[in-house]
């Protein structure tokens, strides 16, 4: 059964320098609080995995936590580039960033293969694209039709971290809305942390809800508003304005560092960070 932890403790115990870490979330339920705690604890040489690295990974890359990024779409959705990601790729600041690039379909299949304990997954993909020169996919022949199919190596993170709406006291987690590849990422990982908006006595989940039983999780952590500026369906909306502001904050190294110093490094936890932003509602 998953122990209910503090976030500091959960990150300390489960995320180590050099680990392969997936902080998954497809626009919705991005685990910002957990990512900030990794930055605060100054983890280094991480290999980050996510289909859609966005502002959180921009922050982690800019703060020097990341050695390698495996992804299929990296941007500030609807706004533009991730300046820290670009600075790392284009100018090796604050350090070189190795990238392994995929298409969404390949990442999705690779997560499913990881969750299924298979060494690889198959799809009609990568073919006819220049991704082939920069990815780990190979081709295999169908033993029945002779058709050529792409094989992508399974994703097996050392630790997967996601945010969800709620958990009960046994650490059983319920999430809903846009759920991305979060279940697969959790089930593919050796260790797993789930931050949740709240701990409740009873989940009261409808039939066939997406539930992660506590016994497959390493740690469950209550962090109210823990996905801000992403959102938690049924709790708070996506703060699109913040995503737009990030473009300005992150454009220059100096403004980025000053912002991170003030908002992340000099706050003791996510709650203090939210207060600093005037998000009193998170109390």
């Amino acid at each position, binding site marked *: 059964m998953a122990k209910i932890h503090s976030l500091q403790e959960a990150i300390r115990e489960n995320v180590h320098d050099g680990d392969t870490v997936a902080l998954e979330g497809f626009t919705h339920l991005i685990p910002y609080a957990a990512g900030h705690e990794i930055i605060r604890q100054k983890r280094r040489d991480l290999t980050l995995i996510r289909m859609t690295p966005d502002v959180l990974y921009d922050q982690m890359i800019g703060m020097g936590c990341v050695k390698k990024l495996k992804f299929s779409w990296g941007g500030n959705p609807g706004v533009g*580039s991730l300046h820290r990601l670009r600075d790392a790729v*284009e100018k090796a600041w604050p350090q070189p960033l190795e990238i392994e690039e995929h*298409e*969404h379909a390949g990442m999705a299949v690779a997560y499913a293969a990881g969750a299924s304990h298979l060494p690889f997954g198959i799809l009609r993909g990568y073919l006819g694209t220049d991704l082939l020169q920069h990815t780990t996919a190979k081709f295999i022949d169908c033993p029945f039709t002779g058709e050529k199919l792409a094989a992508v190596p399974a994703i097996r993170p050392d630790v997967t971290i996601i945010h969800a709406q709620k958990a009960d006291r046994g650490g059983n987690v319920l999430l809903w809305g846009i759920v991305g590849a979060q279940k697969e990422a959790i089930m593919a990982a050796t260790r797993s942390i789930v931050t949740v908006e709240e701990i409740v006595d009873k989940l009261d989940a409808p039939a066939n809800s997406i539930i992660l039983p506590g016994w497959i999780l390493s740690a469950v952590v209550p962090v109210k508003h823990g996905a801000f500026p992403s959102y938690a369906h049924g709790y708070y909306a996506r703060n699109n304005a913040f995503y737009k502001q990030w473009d300005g904050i992150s454009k220059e190294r100096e403004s980025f560092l000053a912002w991170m110093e003030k908002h992340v490094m000099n706050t003791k936890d996510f709650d203090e960070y939210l207060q600093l932003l005037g998000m009193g509602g998170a109390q």
Partner: protein
Amino acid sequence: MANTAESYTSDEMMTVAAARMLKNGTSCFVGIGLPSAAANLARLTHAPDTILIYESGTIGTKPNVLPLSIGDGELAETADTVVGIVEIFNYWLMGGKIGLGFLGAAQIDKFANINSTVIGPYGKPKVRLPGAGGAPAIAASCGEVLITLRHSPKAFVEKIDFRTSGGHMEGGDSRQKYRFPGKGPTAVITDLGVLTPDPVSKELILTSVHPGVTTEQVVAATGWKLQVAADVKTTPEPTALELQVLRDLNERTAKAHAGQA
């Protein structure tokens, strides 16, 4: 198309022209940005039964404002059903259930192959773009594909810096040897006009210019020697209704996205 509006922008013309390409009742896999605006305009005008699907797993979604991201809550709240990423790609997109894919691009070549990965060399990029996302699977698997982007010599290039998604590949019947399930791009809609592939060579040909635009302008805005159809048409102007619906949509959207933080 009786009522034409007094004035409109070239972006509005582009969105309206793209929207008109959607047949009512089609299942349509929609990229964020221009494709999303056009697809929703279609749904709010002539194609109310269009089934809009975003790669975030939202199927049959009917957003009241345009999503900023591919996974805005609005998409989930107004969807017929929301499924996970593995399912949307495996069972729906690559599973061959989608009639039309609607893509944007940073660069496009004469065979409608597109680049949304990088400008300049991959290892030493001039501009690092977001990357492939769902585009390669959309381009390969949907019954047909529409592409919409603004016209410029930097976007319409002889040779794209990176082939993110396959269009008509090396032209002619070369797409066939890749055994992609879908038939590929059937139109490219820009702020200057509409390009469609030649049935045999599959090279993009200018078949329609928007009102007030000359073929010379479009040729000048294209980085390869653009072929022009003998009977190039003029795109009908946006109707008053189309413009009103689009402007209302954009206004609601701007208000919704500014309202936080």
